[in-house]
């Protein structure tokens, strides 16, 4: 019932948005080579998918994000767990992570190109610098905010060391860790797109740049829509679904 309502609301909202877009395009406030009509973008989308150029771009980008984000998630969670529990690590590595987080990850690209050349390595480096810090800080905060009772209960049952991390601290902090991963995902996705824009290699960002070079505004808008749709799908279908499942299991759903 509720689900159906939400879908209806969403459908109407987007239909309205497209109508406004259509109206603006019809009004010819801007020349069509600057402001494309929905139909033009639709044609470009269809063409892009039928000649596989979008598919290749998507696959390239997804491969990079899988590698860069996967690495960031594993290292970021481990780092967050350690900095939250080991005081001297918090004072040293923890403070460095917070510092690095304030630097937009694309600022690493010049250094990355000097170090790795115009290679996959340089782009991956930028993605990792974008996501790793956010995941680490989010995990750290999730562990810091745990009710101490869980750890006390585990200790009184004689649980210590690695098992305390794996079976108590990690699952107890999991809702917060998933949120951190969700945030890390959006950072990784943005970093990747920024990196690909400035980089001569296939990928969604590169398609966007190509649209500019060809003066093809509907290609630019079409690729932007693809980027948004992909980012949205991962957020909804993976992270929000996981969050909801955890909330239900722990009786925290509204």
């Amino acid at each position: 019932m509720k689900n159906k309502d939400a879908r209806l609301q969403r459908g109407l909202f987007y239909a309205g948005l497209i109508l406004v877009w259509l109206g603006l395009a019809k009004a010819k406030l801007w020349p069509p080579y600057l402001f494309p009509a929905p139909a033009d973008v639709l044609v470009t989308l269809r063409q892009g998918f039928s000649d596989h150029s979008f598919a290749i771009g998507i696959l390239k980008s997804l491969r990079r994000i899988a590698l860069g984000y996967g690495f960031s998630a594993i290292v970021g969670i481990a780092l967050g767990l350690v900095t939250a529990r080991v005081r001297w690590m918090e004072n040293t590595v923890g403070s460095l992570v917070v510092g690095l987080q304030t630097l937009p990850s694309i600022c690493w690209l010049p250094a990355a190109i000097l170090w790795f050349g115009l290679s996959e390595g340089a782009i991956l480096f930028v993605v990792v610098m974008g996501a790793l810090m956010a995941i680490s800080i989010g995990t750290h905060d999730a562990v810091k905010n745990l009710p101490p009772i869980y750890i006390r209960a585990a200790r009184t049952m004689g649980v210590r060391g690695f098992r305390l991390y794996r079976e108590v601290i990690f699952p107890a902090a999991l809702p917060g860790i998933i949120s951190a991963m969700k945030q890390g995902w959006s950072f990784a996705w943005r970093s990747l797109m920024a990196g690909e824009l400035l980089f001569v290699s296939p990928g969604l960002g590169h398609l966007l740049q190509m649209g500019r070079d060809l003066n093809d505004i509907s290609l630019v808008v079409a690729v932007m829509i693809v980027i948004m749709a992909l980012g949205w799908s991962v957020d909804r279908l993976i992270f929000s679904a996981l969050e909801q499942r955890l909330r239900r299991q722990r009786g925290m759903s509204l």
Partner: protein
Amino acid sequence: MTIELQIQDLSKTFVTRTGGVGALDTISLDVKEGEFLCLVGPSGCGKSTLLNIVGGLERADQGRIILDGKSIDGPGADRVVIFQDGGLFPWLTVVQNVEFGLKERKDLSKQDRRERAEYFLKLVHLDKFEDAYIHELSGGMRQRVAIARGLVLEPRILLMDEPFAALDTQTRDLLVEELRGIHEKLQNTILFVTHHVREAVHLGDRIVLFTYRPGRIKQIFTVDIPKPRDPDDPRIGKLIREIVDSLHGEVEKALEAELTLEK
């Protein structure tokens, strides 16, 4: 009865829940094997702190805790603490919660663990709920799970820190009676912190009364009335009055301290 646990000249200053500074002052106490010992006193006197020190969750400034002749250091499954709010793990089912501590015992197979967990869940009448998650249980049921989770480890001594304080009166009476039954059956040693005198008199073999700041042992009452005890027994009423009178002065001191602190 042999002496199982010795608390020797134990002192500790600590920060209370309300932010004041409390102190335990040279506490010495012997707990006998199989004894149900209740610790009673005003809030802030340090009875919970004492329990946590015995459980190894906090350190004493001075003094020793000796269990079966050996000085103890740090927490261990031989002295399990049961907390007021359970401290159950919401990401595990009821039976997984009860099994949790048993995983430390490498000599037990998966099946042994499950069987033991189920035995103790049956003991607290929750065998039908073993696959439920914690949030699906009532407050009383949660404390039952917490008790089963402690008992399953077969600790030398069970340390209960106001385990029924957050429950409504009816549930509380029910659980007090169940705990008495469990103690009668298992004959285990229990150290039980409460500020509820009636509860202490119903359960305790001995009742240790603490003074307020510094926390010292004021008086020890031995309850010679056979269990189960009839609440209408005149000896029970007399004992409750005696303890409440003795406690009253201390509670007053605690209240006074709290009020002056607020000013």
